């Protein structure tokens, strides 16, 4: 399931956490491990999970048969409630039209291929996330070890400042108790209560077990690629090298870590 380079990076990341957080550990091994420590520190600073989405693969696959596997898997394992009212709905992974996903990019005459086609949207796990900047309790935070923008559902006070801050509409608020709207409960993941904000977590609970995010794993079209942006040999970096890619609202300086091949 895991490619070699990713596993090795996880290991190095783990090592560097030891090295950086425990001075005493460092002193004991100082002489022999100096070189390794430096390499590990450098690698840890660079670990940033990212995703490259090739919508063409998805559309090609969907010409044969309609597919919502990624969204179903994501919302299923994360106990995302199914609320029909668009004003109150909760979305972690969803689709929208090109002109809505990239409102500043489009023009009147898009290529026939992209016109009316859905684009897959999720939290961008920005390098410079405004939601994290504005949160008054650090209930949303960027994990230093791998760049995932996380939510602490138990600390969130429900002020919704992060929703005003996010320029991607990636955050949803529980306007009501979500539990009655969960079809099938996954006991491995917490449900939320009314009054807190939630969003995609890049499957942090799966990353912890060295597993890919669920959407990536279940995609039959292989349209989603996940990897470490800091590793020049990672599959995401390979794709970025080979294709022209765009990010949503690049001009805002948020540094989205979800790329779209066009």
């Amino acid at each position: 399931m895991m490619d070699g380079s990713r596993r090795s990076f996880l290991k190095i990341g783990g090592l560097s956490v030891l090295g950086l957080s425990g001075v005493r550990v460092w002193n004991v091994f100082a002489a022999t491990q100096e070189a390794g420590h430096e390499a590990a520190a450098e690698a840890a600073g660079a670990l940033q999970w990212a995703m490259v989405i090739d919508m063409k693969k998805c559309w090609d696959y969907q010409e044969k048969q309609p597919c919502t596997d990624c969204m179903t898997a994501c919302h299923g394992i994360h106990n995302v409630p199914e609320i029909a009212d668009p004003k109150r709905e909760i979305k972690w992974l969803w689709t929208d039209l090109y002109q809505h996903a990239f409102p500043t990019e489009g023009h009147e005459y898009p290529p026939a291929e992209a016109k009316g086609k859905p684009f897959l949207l999720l939290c961008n796990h920005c390098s410079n996330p405004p939601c994290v900047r504005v949160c008054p309790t650090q209930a949303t935070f960027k994990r230093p070890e791998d760049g995932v923008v996380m939510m602490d559902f138990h600390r969130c006070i429900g002020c919704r400042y992060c929703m005003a801050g996010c320029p991607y509409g990636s955050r949803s608020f529980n306007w009501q108790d979500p539990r009655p709207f969960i079809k099938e409960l996954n006991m491995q993941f917490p449900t939320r209560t009314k009054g807190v904000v939630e969003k995609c977590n890049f499957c942090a609970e799966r990353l912890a077990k060295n597993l890919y995010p669920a959407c990536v794993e279940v995609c039959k079209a292989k349209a989603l690629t996940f990897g470490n942006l800091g590793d020049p040999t990672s599959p995401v970096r390979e794709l970025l090298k080979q294709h022209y890619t765009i990010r949503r609202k690049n001009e805002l300086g948020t540094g989205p870590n979800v790329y779209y091949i066009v």
Partner: protein
Amino acid sequence: MLEKALEGSKSYWRLLVTLLVLAGIGFGCYLLQLNQGLRITGMSRDVSWGFYIAQFTFLVGVAASAVMVVLPYYLHHVKVFGKITILGEFLAVASVTMCLLFIVVDLGKPMRLLNVLLYPTPNSVLFWDMVVLNGYLFLNIVIGWTVLGAERKGVAAPAWVKPLIYLSIPWAVSIHTVTAFLYAGLPGRHFWLTAILAPRFLASAFAAGPSLLILLAYFVRKRSKFDPGDEAFEKLSQVVAYAMCVNVFFVLLELFTSFYSGIPSHMEGFIYQFSGLEGHGKLMPFMWLSAILSVIAVLMLLSKKKRSQEKTLKIACVLVFIALWLEKGLGLVITGFIPNPFNTVTEYWPTFPELGITIGVYATGFLVLTVLYKVAIAVKEENL
């Protein structure tokens, strides 16, 4: 001193009971919201702040009433304001109380409110807003109460209160600036993303706050033996006139930059407000009303004759207050969410329970105001 609030005329008690009933209705609606969640409001995924946060924003402005009398009195020795500084300070106390209540009723998890103190986060403007609002509340209560207490005993105010008074002046500027920064620093919310938002907040605050103060002072003069003096009204009306002109000027600057540059994201907010966007235009009548009232108010205030007559000054102040309430207490916050991040329009309209809670908070604020004013006026009447 508080015992002075326990004796009053029938109409005083009638007012208190009315406000208590309204606050009670609001509290009932709030219990419903606590039970059901914020779905009982008109807010949505796209317009995630509504009436509550808009009222909070507007009332931060009303709290400026204090500084517009304190600053001339203490820094420029404008003696005519000496009698009414207490009215300005107590109005500020009531306004900030309402601000804080509006923030609390907007929270999805109000029981976790103290997380803001438990995990202080200097990079969040909301954290700083909490600091400056509570600080301003504290300053005005302490200053107002101490100075009034000294006045009652016929002695000079203690020396330690002076530094607090001077501190309260820049502090008043800080509450508007920081509140504007809540909005003006968000990428992708182009209606708010403008450096002139803080100056606009200050200008509209210095118009709305003193105009309400003028109306309240007239009411006090009519219903009690305490007279703030004609000169105080005249000076305050000048403050309102200047501030309102500056506010209108700032709005015009905003319109110029948006429409001369022609950048869609900068224009869309105003287009939504004044002519509707993608077929949505719920705010249109209110925004036009605000614009028209602003122009009439400015014309009235510019005329010295109209400004110096009680009747026309009162009308002008009412117009200023309504115009700015529509601009800030209705238009500014909601429009910031339109269009949404997907460049489509989801409109917002408050629900009845939401309005009930809003009225409840206002009633609570005016209850605080009534009691404080009652104490202040009783002391003033005693010393006549």
